[in-house]
């Protein structure tokens, strides 16, 4: 599904006719990415498994109506992302109102943490604890920023693909990505600054 990778070819006619062997090949090719998307969006293996199953059940049912306006992988990502967002909204409805105002609010995303932690060694930046903090920080983003960030900076999709998947403009993708990155920078700065060697 990643843009940088060779996408496998599928016999679309067979897939749309319900050919089980071809669908099994399709599931085998894309289940890893769908599962990871669920994990990054929901941070819970059981919830990610539910998203994985629901995505392929919906895909199987919807395949006969697939019109080829986007690639199969982008189409599948759209189903998976919608499933994850629906799940989040059901589970944490209180965040929806916060989320809906993202597009309109001016927001104050001015950098507050001005600490240069880039000098920390790689093993510190990428330690097991630091990696857990990277995931935890993504969970603190509002849904609409989180979805864009996961698709663009974790799954490596293009701006165009992300816009197609979320049914928003490319300009909106760029704006949300910028805001997500700045918010994560703040969170990571707070985390890593505590791990800076003391100069005292």
């Amino acid at each position, binding site marked *: 599904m990643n843009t940088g990778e060779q996408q496998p070819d599928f016999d679309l006619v067979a897939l749309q006719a319900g050919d089980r062997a071809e669908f099994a090949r399709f599931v085998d090719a894309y289940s890893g*990415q769908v599962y990871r998307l669920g994990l990054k969006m929901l941070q819970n293996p059981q919830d990610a498994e539910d998203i994985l199953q629901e995505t392929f059940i919906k895909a199987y049912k919807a395949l006969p109506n697939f019109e080829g306006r986007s690639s199969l992988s982008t189409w599948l990502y759209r189903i998976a992302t919608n499933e994850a967002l629906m799940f989040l909204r059901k589970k944490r409805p209180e965040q929806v109102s916060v989320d809906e105002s993202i597009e309109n609010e001016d927001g104050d995303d001015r950098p507050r943490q001005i600490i240069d932690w880039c000098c920390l060694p790689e093993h510190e930046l990428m330690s097991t604890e630091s990696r857990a903090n990277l995931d935890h920080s993504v969970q603190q983003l509002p849904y609409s920023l989180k979805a864009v960030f996961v698709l663009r900076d974790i799954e490596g999709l293009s701006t165009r693909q992300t816009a197609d998947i979320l049914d928003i403009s490319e300009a909106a993708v760029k704006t949300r990505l910028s805001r997500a*990155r*700045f918010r994560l920078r703040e969170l990571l700065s707070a985390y890593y600054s505590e791990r800076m060697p003391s100069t005292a």
Partner: protein
Amino acid sequence: MCKHNHDHRDCSYLLSSLSAYIDGDLEETLCEEIERHVADCEDCRVVIDTLEKTIYLYHATAAQEQPAVPKDVKERLYKRLDLSDFLQNP
């Protein structure tokens, strides 16, 4: 955010372009403007460097974590999809 002797509005104005700048998605004249500004603004240099590092860390960890479905999860998926007979044993 800047403490230096240039106009603070420059910082706010340029911050909105930094994400695109890091992606190499900005026109040359604006890139040059950012680079000129950063040469004189230590705070903005820190913001750019740490923003770039933030993005790098997510890219790097994603590249290292090969997307894979645990065996038991895969088995339950294939069963739910009635595809168990296509499950390949390693």
